[in-house]
């Protein structure tokens, strides 16, 4: 019951993060969607860790949180530099590497 609820919630949160990434054109909002997906994956890890009685899932969550912190630090630094140079933050306008 609880495991099913946790997995369904993880699924729904992941889908919401996915739709945020696909719908939004603002780099910060896309980043927030990615963080939401990471959290959904974390919830699934903890739920399975609880269901199987093994701690390996919780270890995976520790690593996910550390990597998310590193990712947020570098990503936000890149946003600051981009915003300083191009005065925009929309990924449709930032296309010097595309064409």
């Amino acid at each position, binding site marked *: 019951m609880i495991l099913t609820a946790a997995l369904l919630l993880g*699924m729904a949160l992941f889908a919401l993060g996915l739709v945020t990434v696909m*719908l939004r054109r603002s780099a910060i*909002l896309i980043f927030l969607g990615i963080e939401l997906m990471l959290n959904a994956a974390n919830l699934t890890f903890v739920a399975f860790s609880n269901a199987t009685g093994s701690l*390996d899932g919780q270890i995976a969550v*520790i690593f996910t949180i550390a990597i*998310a912190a590193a990712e*947020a630090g570098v990503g936000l630094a890149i946003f600051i*530099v981009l915003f300083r140079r191009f005065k925009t933050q*929309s990924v449709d306008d930032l296309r010097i590497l595309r064409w």
Partner: protein
Amino acid sequence: MTTALFLAFAGLALLFGLLVAALKHPLYAALSLVGVIGCLSVLFYLLGATFLAMVQLIVYAGATLVLFLFVIMLLDLRGEARQAEAHPVQKGMALVLFAAFLCAGVGTVLVQKLPLATKLVKPGVADLGRLLFTRYLLPFEAVTLLLLAAAVGAFLLARKEWK
């Protein structure tokens, strides 16, 4: 009791998740994400991951999301929220993919024969730490290196006189 509490906070987390996807202002979306993380912290606690519940609150909500809020407030994003609109075709495709993904995921979960009762394991921090420093020592050290590299990289990138 635990189940009711779990379901209540799961619903709250879903509500905040919907807000993250629906709100167009980065500040409000980030604050909703803080709500999601707070609810998930309670869920972690109810699932027996007490240490992770605290880490989720202190590191994720307290450090990572505050960093987000700092940057959002540092950048002058007025007017950005309106112009950053997706193309209608893009929107339609995103919603179709969202629905397909959600149906597939929920279906997959529902057809599984999952155990109804969950073992309420209460492992302490000691077990977690022992595992982290024995079997997962190498990934742990790799992550410390990654964090150092990320800190140096973020500092180098965001310097004022960046050429």
